[in-house]
């Protein structure tokens, strides 16, 4: 079908982004809105293959240590200034200070150079398998040097009216109400974007969001904007399309942090018992409405080098009880920290608590808001805690960080929070990141997965799926592995 030009889309954004300057703040909603304004060097197909965006083409040296990007010509910022390699160099420097993930991704980079206006060369300290996977807009957005260089970034006026190279330009933000983006007439891909305007509606209450969709006030509900319980009902509305695509890059995986340092969960048998005690199919079918998959181990099935040839933990309360007995557990209190991300997660916490109580564990739920929960997790002050994390396509980016002992550090809510420490695993992940070719990496990672699943450092639960719900007239909304976060440049309305 031939795309049609024109039209306005109303999408829901939740919660209200704290700002739109992607280089400074990077939570979900910011990415979703700013993915239209800013761009990265690359995009990724649903199969996680790199595709050109601001970089037209790229080459990798023999020793896999030098990556040369050729930038697209004729790209301009929204204010008309040209986009050049100087902007890339500046962005790398700035992101190292303001963007935690970019900072750790770029740790491998020895130096970045710009031989000319349209060429950028990254030289690595050592080969880094997943290096081509760090260039999408959320991980490394390009920032206009001419507006930020030499200013106090955090108070720069353009933070509130960001200037990017993307298909849409920032127009208006009524706090608490909506954010309005308009078409970039000078966009570097001719004919795109098709839409005239995007309204991001800010509706804080989940029930109100589904009503807004139902009554036709919004056309797009990005993943996670309504409670799962509502998805089946909304999908049945007429003229409504649902897709689970657009999460391949993130492949969110949910698990329970188990405190490996102290308390009952320091005992491997107890951790295994927890795996057996939890009815994960129930969670998938009832709490997530059948969306997603039961996780088999530390890696989501869409991630490179995934294997399901690992020990299995089916729902088996009897075995769980036996293991607990073996471990000598007798009723010590275990604190469970659910995730304060809304109803679904709360229900899930209740179900898990009930499962664990059924096998004789003494569970006390600790309730906190997001901030309080993060504090407790980062202080290692918990026994069991819910979380879900993105995997960023490659075990070296999103998996290893959760299990290697070098990633143990107080004061953070990600990485090795559980305090698992196994020299063998440390070595495997260290090798895996720099090994070539891929077949070698595969071998290493499969071994690591087996060891981890046997040890149960954390209790893996589900590969999550956040369906995007749209009116069927919205076409080609999701074309890449980061879905709605990659901007609406391909989307069009079938009127």
């Amino acid at each position: 079908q031939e795309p049609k030009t024109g039209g306005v889309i109303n999408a829901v954004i939740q919660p209200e982004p704290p700002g739109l300057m992607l280089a400074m703040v990077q939570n979900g909603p910011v990415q979703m809105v700013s993915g239209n304004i800013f761009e990265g060097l690359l995009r990724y197909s649903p199969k996680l293959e790199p595709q050109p965006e601001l970089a037209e083409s790229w080459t990798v040296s023999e020793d896999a240590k030098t990556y040369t990007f050729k930038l697209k010509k004729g790209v301009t910022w929204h204010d008309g200034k040209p986009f050049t390699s100087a902007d890339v160099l500046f962005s790398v420097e700035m992101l190292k200070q303001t963007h935690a993930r970019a900072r750790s991704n770029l740790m491998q980079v020895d130096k970045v150079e710009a031989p000319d206006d349209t060429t950028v060369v990254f030289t690595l300290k050592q080969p880094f398998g997943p290096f081509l996977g760090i260039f999408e807009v959320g991980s490394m957005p390009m920032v206009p040097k001419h507006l930020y260089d030499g200013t106090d970034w955090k108070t720069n006026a353009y933070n509130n009216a960001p200037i990017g190279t993307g298909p849409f330009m920032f127009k208006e933000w009524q706090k608490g109400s909506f954010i309005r983006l308009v078409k970039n007439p000078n966009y570097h891909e001719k004919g795109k974007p098709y839409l005239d305007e995007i309204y991001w509606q800010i509706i804080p209450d989940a029930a109100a969001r589904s009503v807004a969709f139902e009554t036709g006030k919004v056309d797009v509900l990005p993943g996670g904007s309504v409670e799962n319980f509502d998805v089946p009902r909304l999908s049945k509305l007429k003229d409504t399309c649902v897709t689970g695509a657009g999460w391949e890059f993130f492949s969110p995986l949910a698990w329970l942090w188990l405190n490996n340092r102290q308390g009952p969960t320091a005992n491997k048998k107890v951790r295994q018992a927890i795996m057996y005690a939890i009815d994960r199919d129930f969670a998938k079918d009832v709490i997530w409405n059948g969306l997603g998959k039961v996780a088999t181990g530390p890696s989501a099935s869409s991630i490179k080098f995934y294997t399901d040839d690992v020990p299995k933990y089916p729902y088996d309360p009897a075995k769980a009880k036996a293991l607990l007995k073996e471990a000598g557990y007798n009723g010590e209190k275990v604190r469970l920290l659910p995730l304060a991300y809304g109803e679904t997660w709360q229900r899930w916490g209740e179900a898990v608590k009930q499962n664990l109580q059924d096998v004789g564990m003494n569970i006390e739920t600790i309730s906190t808001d997001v901030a309080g929960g993060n504090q407790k997790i980062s202080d290692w002050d918990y026994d069991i805690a819910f979380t879900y994390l993105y995997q960023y396509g490659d075990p070296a980016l999103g998996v290893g960080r959760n299990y290697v002992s070098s990633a143990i550090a107080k004061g953070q809510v990600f990485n090795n929070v559980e305090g698992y420490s196994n020299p063998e695993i440390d070595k495997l992940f260290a090798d895996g990141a720099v090994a070539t070719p891929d077949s070698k990496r595969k071998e290493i990672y499969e071994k690591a997965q087996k060891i981890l699943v046997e040890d149960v450092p954390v209790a893996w639960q589900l590969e999550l799926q956040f369906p995007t719900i749209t009116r069927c007239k919205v076409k080609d909304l999701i074309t890449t592995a980061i879905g709605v976060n990659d901007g609406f440049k391909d989307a069009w309305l079938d009127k």
Partner: protein
Amino acid sequence: MKQFWTSMLRNPSGLIGLIILLLAIAVAVFGPLLFPNSPWRMVQRPFLPPFTLSTVPLGTDALGRDVFAGLIFGARVSLLVGLVSTLVALIVGVPIGAIAGYFGGKVDDALMRFTEFFQTIPSFALAIVLVAILQPSIYSIVASIAVVSWPPVARLVRGEVLSLRTREYVQAAIVTGQSHGWIIWREILPNALSPVIVLASLMVATAILLESSLSFLGLGDPNLISWGYMVGAGRTVIRQAWWITVFPGIAILISVLGLNLIGEGLNDALNPRLSREGR
């Protein structure tokens, strides 16, 4: 006393309110004995509509838990929160009000500034912040409800004491050489009690509402089931499973209504002057 009960029982609204409250208390006290299972237990398939299975007469919620059992156990928490937080508010508010009203002058001034200060901060907002800071638990909820509800008690008691203090029988107690504590306790407070009791009955109602609002915002005690929690938990699925929210909602409505009717009845029974002339 006897007179009080007869006038209370003769008053239709007071009677209805009393019946409702007694029923609710009976449910809270004896209900859980009939339901030995935890209300959190997932007993049936989720979203089972009410009146389909006699074992779960009011249907099940999103996880397949018995709504009826939740209602029964919830009565305990909701009433407990209502009663205890009111009690705490009285324990704080009555002495402050009594001391301010009795001693007057600078003491009064200081205590009333203090009270005003608490009244200036929007109460629900303060309650939210307090619960969030103390971490949601039954104790923090009771404490923060009490913190936001004692100022009216203090003001009411102060007002009463202020006017009672100048009564001749109080002066008589002073001139017969009785101590301040005795005078406040024996001569003043018993006579200031009736408006306080009326206020207290309304405060219990307000506290139940407050608890439900906090639960609605996800600031309830995660280990205890309460009506507010049930409404909050069910609201996202209100479209496909109305019963999850409607039954606890009605439970809240009826108990709050009952308590208000009691308040009305108490008011009529304790301050007969007002109601006598219904013209």
